[in-house]
């Protein structure tokens, strides 16, 4: 039996412990904000937080999240939207939007560890997140704006 917390709520799971967390949150919990893009840790669409760290849920087996605190895009804002989500909205970052939950989760981790990231910091932190629509320049601008606002 695997016990974990997702967005503050306790859950237990006794299915296939090899099942990646992605499919547990999407198919079992119905939290579909976390997206499937590649299944191989190559695109970042499935990014969630495990004990505050951004991880690729598509390759994270349930056996590895015993006792973990997981936060998905649905649980990100404590009271309403998170400042990073607000910055995303202000800069009209999304096109199709499919990658953006993963981008936002990754950016939140970056800003938690670096209050004022440089371009290089941003490129390094966001390197694993593909946006096929090509919204990178707005992502960069939104991260910087969110950083300024929380400063």
């Amino acid at each position, binding site marked *: 039996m695997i016990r974990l917390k997702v967005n503050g709520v306790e859950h237990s799971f006794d299915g296939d412990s090899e099942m990646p967390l992605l499919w547990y949150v999407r198919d079992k919990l119905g939290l579909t*904000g976390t997206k499937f893009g590649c299944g191989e840790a190559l695109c970042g669409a499935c990014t969630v937080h495990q004990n505050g760290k951004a991880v690729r849920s598509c390759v994270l087996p349930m056996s590895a999240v015993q006792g973990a605190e997981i936060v998905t*895009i649905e649980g990100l804002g404590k009271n309403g939207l998170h400042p990073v989500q607000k910055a995303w909205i202000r800069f009209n970052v999304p096109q199709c*939007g499919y990658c953006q939950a993963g981008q936002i989760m990754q950016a939140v981790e970056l800003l938690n560890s670096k209050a004022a990231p440089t371009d290089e910091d941003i490129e390094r932190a966001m390197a694993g997140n593909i*946006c096929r629509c090509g919204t990178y320049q707005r992502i960069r601008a939104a991260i910087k704006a969110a950083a300024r606002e929380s400063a």
Partner: protein
Amino acid sequence: MNTNSIENVSRRRFLKGAFSAGALVLGVRFLPQVLWAAVREPLYGPDVKDAVFNPNLFVGIEPNGTVIIVAHRSEMGTGIRTSLPRVLADELDADWTRVKLQQGIGDARYGSQNTDGSHSIREFFDVMREMGGAARLMLVRAAAQRWKVSPDECETRLSTVVHAASGRKLGYGELARAAAKLPVPKKQELQFKPSSKWRYIGKSAPMYDLAGICSGKPLYGIDTSLDGMVYASIEHPPVLGGKVKSYDDGEARRVAGVRRTVQIPPFKPPYAFQALGGVAVIADNTWAAFQGRSKLKIEWDNGPNASYNSTEYRKMLEETARKPGKVVRNDGDVEAAFAKGGKIVEAAYYTPHVAHAPMEPPNAVADYREGKVTAWAPTQNPQAVQDAVAGALGIKKENVICHVTLLGGAFGRKSMPDYVAEAALLSKEVGRPVKVTWRREDDIKFDYFHSVAAMYMKAALGENGRPSAWLQRSVFPSLMSTFDANTMYGAPLEVGMGWNDIPYDIPNLRVENGPAKAHVRIGWLRSVANIYHAYAVQSFSDELAHVAQRDPVEYLLDLIGPPRIIDLKSIGYWNYNGNTEQYPIDTSRLRRVVEMAASQAGWGKRKLGKGSGMGIAAHRSFLTYVATVVEVEVNDKGELKIPRVDTVVDAGLVVSPDVVRNQFEGAAVFGTSVTRTGEITATNGVIDQSNFHNYPVARIADAPYYTKVTLVESNAPPAGVGEPGVPPFVPALCNAVYAATGKRIRELPLSKHNLKA
């Protein structure tokens, strides 16, 4: 669009449940009355459970003041779901904060819903304004009747009718009931707002779904979930047209959560939008379906396409490009001009297949019940879904309901609904709703690929290095092979994409197209044949500028020649189905974007460091004129960076400027992927690439650091914006690489070239 008639459908019974009693509802017919009426079966509305209404393009005003507008085009990131309703809302003078959108289901009564070819705004702009204007006038007339004044004394402001003289006001909601009883005004009675009064058109606004997207709401096809739904993953034949010889699912069925397997029969040629066939694993969740699938043992009969090898195919294309082909335009006498001499320059260009790889892989949910199917799909073309599902199950199109979700990217892939047909076939077989999810590997291996192409170019340079003769020939397997496997030549729409419409001022000009047979599925990919055609024409132009020792911008302007209208009626040029009076090929507009882009980029003014260079290209596609300057930096190791892109766009009237800028920023990134790493190859009919490790796409550091998009202010009729950014970007990047390194890129992608000095 002038032939459509707007109707007052407020009191139709089918609206019950969709609207409150007393709502004013207008619809518009795109089909003749007979056809429209023939579809008698009421359909379920997307957001309205248990209510039936007759879907046609409509606007409804609820007694509480909510304005409901149907979005009947698919949203894949271009903002169309927001932009078209805003056109209507503007002419209605509605308060946008009180507008609710309802996504239209697939229905022929909307007219074409195929959201491809960058034509949504162009085709529906007028009818949206007419709907808004008609509803507004009805509300004004209702208010005037109530106040016993002339409608001319009334005006509207944000969902309110105002009688200035007496200071009286009534909200649209309060007037809806009375307005619903009035006849629809004739088009001649409508008074459209002057553009100076537009509140929404031409003003930037967030996309309707923006907050939902940023907070992870279940908006996409892949987020669909139904009670009792099971999950499917399908092992497709590795080679197009292959068949299952035999298979063993013993181990697959032992995987926890796997219920059973289902064999899907192979398609009957032409493949069109049919399911590819193969073996499906049905399970209780997506992961179990994937796991079960990896345990299948299948023996395949690969069929004749197993002979497809990209290396040999390329040779064949290149050889064909050296031989005379079908002439698709012939001005003057090219042979005579070549015979006269001058400096002869030749070049051959090659571009491989590329895959769409939208971030959301193909997926669909279908629920088959008693001869009817309800499907939920991220699709660009819900009516094609109806056809594909009906065809697969042998039922009538009217018995297929297709709900359109948001699309997590599409780029053309999702106008081909094979994956929805799969879900429907499986649902019928297992008697439950089925969700089909393609893995990324399926998406890349079983795409409808952007065509591989070889281009041969030849010019004779006369005085001042100006071409006196120009010959160009392209060879590629046609899109139309989707519908006829024996297609050998490019369709008019393909040779009409940046090829026989070359807008150059050259007296002797011949354009040809050579034969090639397809061995994989070929599909529409963002800007289609324009990509390889613009790549060849604009690269060759740059090569000639250097041979002529002239500045590439100045030379490009000379090639385009004086401001004029180019008339290509005699060659049957398709002009993106746009009327040539409204949408001529106007070289003054092409010249202007070139001049503006050059000056915005500081062409010839800005000093660039060692290893840096700028390239320019210009192209008209989807009736839009675009020029792009790309700046690159190549370091000693041969690593490339793109610090800056300047793009100038003349797309006529622009409804949503910021959304359009986002499209062109994105086109630069999409073009970066195509140019730097886009390559799909086949060995013995099997696609060699499978996921983002061997089919890399641009990541944040590969993409242009900054793309500045300038929209030319224009009152010309609206044109396309989703696609036209890609074609000029690709050659502009290659020309910049040449400027920076002296290496001419005659073959894509760049990853095959060593850029080290």
